[in-house]
């Protein structure tokens, strides 16, 4: 058994922390907004540029596309340090974690050449056009239709709950290209320019940031066939693979653990008396964060050993949701009314904890996957 950070990992974390301490003084302004919010997109663009200059935006990518050959563990260190500080990369984490890798895996040489360098440089924002009003958790029932017309697809339909839709340059869009096929088999991925004629974006005000979501309305939007990612009608497997990068790519536990640590520190500094039930809630929350951390590490270890994706990712994701909620509850108990200050770390943690079981795939679906893949329980 071996369980320790290497000298290289430790020095990387230390260098990263020094950089962040300088670049994000105190509680950086961005931490008052949350993921999905467009409020800090401009800051994130600038910050991502700085990371790119240091080689820290896409360190896990192949060197040919701007990577530095970093190990999955170094990538985990990067994720932890950035998420614990409120994820100053903003929307860029999607680009670097799964949109870029998906383009690398399935893109044509022209697509790679066109889309990857701007992602590696940190000066482009992508959004994902997945959910539709009638296709949420049941994503494969999506109806946005793409019909071939010469060298273009003509796309009609709508997408909803698209984060950053109002500021993105491109959209990783799921469409139905064969209306007759079995529902998983008629889907394709199109890479759509967000300034395409016929595309209208409407912001949807949310409880986690001023413009947390957008809705996309597509009316006869022409998208060149050359912008299709992967084979026609095989988009479902393309996107499933892409999202397998996503499960633990966002170490949400790191933010929760950081907020808990800071809240405890504040309470101690202010000499607040803490009753035994609250002490226990804090202990339980801290334990849950540690559990989530270790379960995420198990997945990273698999990746580091080049093992195929396993149900461990689903287990880790469930543990992260639990940790986020327990931290929110513990912070409320610790802080009392102070948690209510809009925009405070603990207020944001509380809001995020409400969304934790829904964002990036529901808690219930993760439990289904754990029961089937991990416990081998039958489906029906």
């Amino acid at each position, binding site marked *: 058994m071996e369980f320790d950070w290497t000298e290289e990992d430790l020095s990387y974390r230390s260098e990263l922390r020094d950089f962040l301490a300088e670049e994000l003084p105190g509680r950086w302004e961005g931490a008052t907004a949350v993921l999905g919010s467009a409020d800090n997109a401009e800051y994130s663009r600038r910050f991502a540029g700085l990371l790119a200059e240091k080689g820290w935006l896409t360190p896990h990518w192949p060197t040919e596309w701007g990577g530095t050959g970093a190990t999955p563990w170094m990538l985990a260190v990067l994720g932890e340090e950035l998420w614990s500080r409120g994820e100053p990369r903003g929307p860029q984490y999607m680009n670097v974690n799964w949109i870029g890798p998906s383009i690398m895996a399935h893109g044509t040489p022209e697509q790679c050449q066109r889309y990857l360098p701007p992602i590696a440089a940190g000066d482009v924002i992508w959004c994902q056009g997945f959910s539709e009003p009638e296709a949420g958790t049941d994503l494969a029932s999506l109806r946005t239709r793409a019909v071939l017309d010469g060298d273009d697809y003509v796309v009609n339909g709508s997408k909803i709950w698209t984060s950053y839709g109002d500021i993105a340059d491109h959209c990783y869009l799921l469409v139905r290209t064969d209306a007759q096929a079995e529902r998983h088999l008629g889907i394709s991925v199109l890479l759509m320019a967000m300034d395409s004629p016929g595309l209208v974006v409407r912001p949807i005000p*949310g409880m*986690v940031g001023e413009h947390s*979501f957008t809705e996309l309305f597509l009316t006869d939007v022409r998208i060149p066939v050359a912008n299709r990612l992967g084979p026609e009608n095989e988009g479902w497997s393309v996107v499933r693979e892409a999202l397998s990068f996503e499960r633990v790519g966002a170490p949400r536990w790191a933010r929760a653990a950081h907020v808990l640590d800071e809240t405890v520190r504040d309470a101690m500094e202010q000499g607040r008396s803490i009753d035994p039930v609250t002490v226990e809630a804090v202990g339980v929350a801290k334990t849950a964060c540690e559990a989530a951390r270790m379960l995420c590490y198990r997945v990273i270890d698999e990746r580091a050993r080049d093992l195929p994706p396993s149900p461990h990712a689903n287990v880790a994701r469930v543990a992260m949701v639990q940790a986020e909620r327990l931290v929110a509850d513990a912070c409320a108990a610790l802080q*009392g009314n*102070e948690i*209510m*200050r809009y*925009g405070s770390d603990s207020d944001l943690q509380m*809001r995020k904890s409400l969304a934790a079981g829904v964002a990036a795939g529901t808690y*219930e679906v993760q439990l289904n996957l754990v029961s089937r893949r991990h416990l081998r329980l039958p489906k029906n």
Partner: protein
Amino acid sequence: MSLDLSYRSEQEELARSVDGLCRRCGTGAGFTDSDPLPEQYWRGLAELGVLGLGTAAGGGGALEIAACMEQLGAHGAPGPLVGTFTAGALLDPSEMEPISGGRQLASVGQPPLLPWAAQAGVFVEIDSSEAWLSRPVSAPEPVDTTAGEPWGRTELERLRPLGDATTAVALGQTAAAAYLAGAAQNLVEIASQYAKDRVQFNRPIATFQAISHPLASCSVAVSASRILARAAACALDNRDPDAPAAAARARLSATASATAAAYQAHQTFGAIGFTIEGPVAHVSLRIRQLSLQPVPQASARAHVLESLGI
């Protein structure tokens, strides 16, 4: 023994009036952050006599307050409701009159961060056993809160002791418990309806036990909280020595069940639950806000332990 925890007809009638008022003024997301306290609504509550309930002048008691608060909770209605009822049990009639009349707001809490302080005209400092009529030493620094309430930060200068606050705190906890139970009941109902309407994988999501069982669990917990709140209100009206502990139990139960119902409503509604226009976010945030008032949960736990001789 008899157990009748249904409201009497006049209490039901008052609750229906409150329901009607809320429907006219806004309900759920209709009570928006842009106007933290719509004038028509607050004045309407005063005219119905709700803001004076529990005072000598206003009549009524804890059961009337609980009946109204269940309705107000179901609508996610705003305002310093818990503070108003707590103040009513502490202040002189002349001090209470403008508050009951809806012309002045009461801020009741522990400094420095005080509920509704940015708009309040009367300040009551309270801990779990004592209260003081107070005034801010400086203009409260406005603080926006989770549920869009205009709170404020200031130190208070105590003007006059208001004596033992045990009963007032118990009344406040009962009022908060009834509101939370009403809010949670409503969330469970609208989430259940949504689960029946929303089709994914070619079937209503209510047919998945992953959806229906947690809603059923919430329903059980909320039923208990409603009964505990009504029982506490009865105990208060009967001047039962167990009333403070009953109120504390009701409040702890309601806080837990409402918080759980909020999580589950979000799970059921999915993304639409996080929109400002949607039916859940507004209520779930208010539940969080109210779960910490009028005194910390730790005080409620202490009351329960005390009643057990611990």
